């Protein structure tokens, strides 16, 4: 195990009932020539109400990890438990917000959000209540009749977020949701996501390669390194919210995370 803990990083939380438990999860990918160890014995717990970030460079297996939690992929070794039960298939209690705007162009904003609720079998009144509530929450009230090609990238991600939140999932999985957006939009959405998290108390597992983003958003930040995908370190972040991207504490934390990552890349280059 590659987790090393410093005193300031706190202790891995050992609450009685973590919502998500990953125990020694390993995953290999077979290519024609060789096998890649995408995940090497990852152990992570996420508790109810936590905002957990997984940060690492591309190829460190963080998206694979998220897919395993989503139930889209399965570990080769180890266990992935959600509410103490093995994750077998995707489910609305672990809904995903994707990097690409995974929205349906033939439906307008309102209908896109409502679709998840239809799938979940909610009745008409309940669907309307939730659509209204979450459209409001992501500030898209004026656009409820708009179609996807009429929306900007940032607005589309808001719709995705509203659609996911409307299902009132036990855990929200976010796979680099802001990576394809311009810097200004990303800043705005990071702030909005913090506010939404404060208001809804959702449990979030957020994957990103952006160190600053992880520092702004995470209660706990898991740093992963590639080839093989390992958990290198865990930070417990106890900074007041909402956190501004330019506050000293955030910049400081981002620098620490970056050092962890660079350290590894450095080692990788010169170890031979």
């Amino acid at each position, binding site marked *: 195990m590659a987790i090393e803990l410093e005193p300031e990083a706190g202790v891995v939380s050992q609450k009685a009932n973590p919502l998500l438990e990953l125990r020694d999860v390993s995953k290999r990918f077979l290519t024609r020539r060789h096998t890649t160890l995408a995940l090497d014995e990852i152990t992570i717990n996420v508790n109810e109400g936590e905002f957990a970030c997984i940060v690492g460079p591309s190829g460190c297996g963080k998206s694979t990890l998220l897919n395993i939690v*989503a*139930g*889209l992929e399965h570990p080769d070794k180890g266990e992935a438990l959600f509410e103490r039960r093995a994750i077998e298939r*995707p*489910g*609305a209690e*672990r*809904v*995903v917000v*994707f990097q*690409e*705007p*995974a*929205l*349906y*162009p*033939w439906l307008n904003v309102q209908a896109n959000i409502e*679709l*998840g609720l*239809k*799938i*979940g079998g909610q009745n008409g009144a309940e669907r309307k209540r939730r659509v209204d509530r979450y459209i409001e929450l992501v500030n898209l009230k004026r656009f409820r009749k708009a*179609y*996807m*090609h009429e929306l900007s990238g940032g607005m589309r991600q808001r719709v995705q977020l509203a*659609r996911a939140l409307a*299902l009132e999932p036990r855990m929200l*999985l976010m796979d680099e949701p802001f990576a394809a957006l311009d810097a200004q939009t990303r800043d705005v959405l990071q702030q909005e996501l913090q506010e939404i998290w404060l208001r809804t108390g959702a449990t979030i597992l957020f994957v990103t390669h952006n160190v600053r983003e992880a520092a702004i958003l995470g209660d706990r930040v898991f740093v992963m390194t590639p080839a093989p995908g390992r958990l290198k370190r865990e930070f417990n972040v106890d900074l007041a919210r909402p956190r501004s991207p330019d506050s000293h504490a955030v910049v400081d934390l981002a620098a620490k995370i970056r050092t962890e990552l660079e350290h590894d890349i450095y080692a990788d280059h010169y170890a031979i």
Partner: protein
Amino acid sequence: MLFRLARIVLFYVALVAIWQAVVVLEIWPKYLVPPPADVWDSLKDHVDNHQIPDAVQLTMRRLLIGYSISLVIGMVLGMAVGTWKWVEETVGSLIVGLQSLPSITWAPLAVLWFGLNDKAIIFVVLMGSISAIAISTSSGVRNIPPIYRKAALTMGANRFQMTRYVLLPAMLPALAPGLKLGWSFAWRSLLAAELVIASGLSVGRLLETGRDLTDMNLVVAVMTVIVAVGLLADFLVFGRLERWTQERWGYATA
């Protein structure tokens, strides 16, 4: 809009004028190339004596029945072919093979199996249009962006919900041209079948009657009706469907 309409009208007026000119120049005898006015009269007569309206009604009924059945069978086949590799390799290859077979070649078999009746004709229509619809459905299914499925899966969609809410609407833009193609294949197969299979007073039968009586006016009048029906279907249904899907889906980035 008015200008466009004027342009279209002008085009057809010019076309009739050229036709009239050919008749006046007497390059071919009148019984082979009838003058527009005589064709118009014949059209009017046969509308007045209900022959054309009745024939169109019968033919359209066959078309609608045949096309509806084709839609159901073609889309089910197409979705199966587009979803499972092994179905593609077996049934899919058969469909592609059958598409190279002109549907009218089924007429002799159809008459032996069903007799000289509607069933035989509708069978020929099915054989003409199912494959076009199936092929475009299967490519529609295959070209659905994987993220659409993934998103629905993580929202907890089951197989039925996936098909109903995601796959069917997602493949509409690819399907729209296929539906139109299937329609035009059905229409052609139907007229060919009606020419060959003598059953009821249909558009095809009316055309055949014109030939038998060397009534070129009637032949051309019926041909005009056939073109008009095709244009009308395109204008009312398929053109709109295509434009709508292009607009709604085309600009959207997946």
